[in-house]
């Protein structure tokens, strides 16, 4: 049962093959048994899930079933869930129980979904390995000595271990796509503004986007149907009709022009990864697509620009965590300054502190022009690269990450080495474009991800391209040993 996709679960529930209570209990048991090995969940909401499943079964019986009625999923612990602890992977919010729901959570509730729990993540979404969580690292189900990727490592690992058929996640510099690649699952970061950020704890406001993770492109399309909406509570939410993302999944790919950025196949790319990606591209050619070499000449500036802009925005977004209105508060502060210094010194982990300080530096008097302003100029150049490319191609493809999952501690005390994990994904966030990753191979029994980048609001086309690949191949069905 745990191998079923969301599409299969919806069909099974509709046909009466099984009930929501059955599948929910099954998954909860599995989580209980297996998750101690992977640590992919921070909070499991077993009681609420079963109650919800029961209600869903009754609702379905009365003939009134919305799309996800009784379907179990998990939420990344960055989405506020009313009455349920929302930690953002941090000690700072270890005791934070919000009295409100994120719009993404509301959307799935309205669609009838059953929530299994909140998945583990890098603290405040800052990381590419899920090693910075206050709740301990997440292990990659393909190889427990390796990282699952981050920041949505919990969602990715839970999917790979078949503990949940679908999970929400967020992507600021690659945090959906890179863990999807490292865990052999499918994940999509929509166009900036497609999914509401209300109730999604902010890291870098102009880069953050929420998106679906599942084991197939079709499942991601189903999830995106539920997740996407115009939200008047989010000023950056785009007022644009949400199409049915499953409608065009089966369009044939003949004539599809695929841009291959030469900058994404240069130094630093693992040879095994490159080979798997190139083989995947051959499959696309077989289906009638044309590969076109393109250039994104400012690619090398993406990581530096990101590591100015994201920390700068984060430094302001995280200033609210001060022990006054919610969250962690240091013990017995003797004056106001002490309250702030110790609450934040004790509540934040090292990576978060580092990024806040870098951000403050880049915005500070005397450095603003050289760093922040400069980075925003480079950002426009990077966006222009994509605009130029999409004038000649329909989608862009390449590797999601430079190599498969690496060992814990491998990036050691070298933050920059960790940052380079996102070298192929970051530009997409800077430009606000949609991007996704789907499994396309294995290297040393560790998954490799193919990245698809689309033009603004072209999620339908991207999912179509991914789905057609998944009909012809079975990388997305591979399962880590023992977890079938």
């Amino acid at each position: 049962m745990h191998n079923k996709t969301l599409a299969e679960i919806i069909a099974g529930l509709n046909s009466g093959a099984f009930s929501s209570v059955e599948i929910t209990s099954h998954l909860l048991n599995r989580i209980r048994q297996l998750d101690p090995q992977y640590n992919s969940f921070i909070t499991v909401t077993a009681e609420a899930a079963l109650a919800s499943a029961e209600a869903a079964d009754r609702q379905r019986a009365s003939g009134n079933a919305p799309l996800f009625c009784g379907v179990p999923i998990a939420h990344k612990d960055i989405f506020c869930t009313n009455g349920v602890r929302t930690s953002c992977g941090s000690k700072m919010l270890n005791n934070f129980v919000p009295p409100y729901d994120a719009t993404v959570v509301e959307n799935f509730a309205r669609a009838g979904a059953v929530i299994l729990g909140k998945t583990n993540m890098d603290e405040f979404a800052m990381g590419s390995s899920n090693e910075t969580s206050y709740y301990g690292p997440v292990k990659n189900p393909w190889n427990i000595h390796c990282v699952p990727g981050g920041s949505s490592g919990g969602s990715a690992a839970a999917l790979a271990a078949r503990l949940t058929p679908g999970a929400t996640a967020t992507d600021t510099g690659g945090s959906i796509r890179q863990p999807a690649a490292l865990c052999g699952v499918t994940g999509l970061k929509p166009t900036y503004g497609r999914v509401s950020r209300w109730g999604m704890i902010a890291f870098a406001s102009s880069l953050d986007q929420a998106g679906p993770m599942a084991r197939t492109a079709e499942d991601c399309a189903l999830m995106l149907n539920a997740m996407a909406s115009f939200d008047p509570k989010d000023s950056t939410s785009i007022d644009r009709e949400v199409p049915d993302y499953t409608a065009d999944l089966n369009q044939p790919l003949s004539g599809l022009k695929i841009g291959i950025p030469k900058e994404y196949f240069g130094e630093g790319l693992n040879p095994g990864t490159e080979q798997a990606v190139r083989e995947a591209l051959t499959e696309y050619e077989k289906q009638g697509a044309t590969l076109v070499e393109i250039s994104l000449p400012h690619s090398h500036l993406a990581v530096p620009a990101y590591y100015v802009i994201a920390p700068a925005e984060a430094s302001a977004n995280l200033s609210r965590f001060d022990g006054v209105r919610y969250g962690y508060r240091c013990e017995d502060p003797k004056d106001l300054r002490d309250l702030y210094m110790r609450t934040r010194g004790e509540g934040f982990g090292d990576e978060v502190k580092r990024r806040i300080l870098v951000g403050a530096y880049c915005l500070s008097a005397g450095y603003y022009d050289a760093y922040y302003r400069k980075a925003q100029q480079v950002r426009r150049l990077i966006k222009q690269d994509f605009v130029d490319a999409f004038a000649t191609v329909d989608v862009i493809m390449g590797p999601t990450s430079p190599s498969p999952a690496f060992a814990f501690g491998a990036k050691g005390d070298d933050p920059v080495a960790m940052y380079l994990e996102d070298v192929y994904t970051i530009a997409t966030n800077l430009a606000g474009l949609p991007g996704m990753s789907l499994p396309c191979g294995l290297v040393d029994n560790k998954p490799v991800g193919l990245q698809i980048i689309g033009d603004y609001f072209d999620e339908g086309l991207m999912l179509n391209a991914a789905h057609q690949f998944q009909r012809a191949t079975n990388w997305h069905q591979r399962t880590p040993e023992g977890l079938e």
Partner: protein
Amino acid sequence: MTIERADIEKLAELARIELNDATITETTRSIADVLALVDQLQAANTEGVTPMAHPTDAIQRLRPDVVTETNQREAFQAIAPAVEGGLYLVPKVID
């Protein structure tokens, strides 16, 4: 751009984050590494390029002037670390 311990201490004060002595050296080093990374931006030719604060070209929607929120003090203060008489408590502030 070389960054030194004194700079880190000033930033930590600005960001209200206490760094303990043991880790300050480490933090200084790792931040210097990050700044070396971002210094790569300086080589870019950005003359005449307008900075891009938002990835979208959209403009701001304005909201009608209507009261939509009700009093939820109880719910919000149930999760507060220190409240009394409906007020949030902080160590005495002297102006």
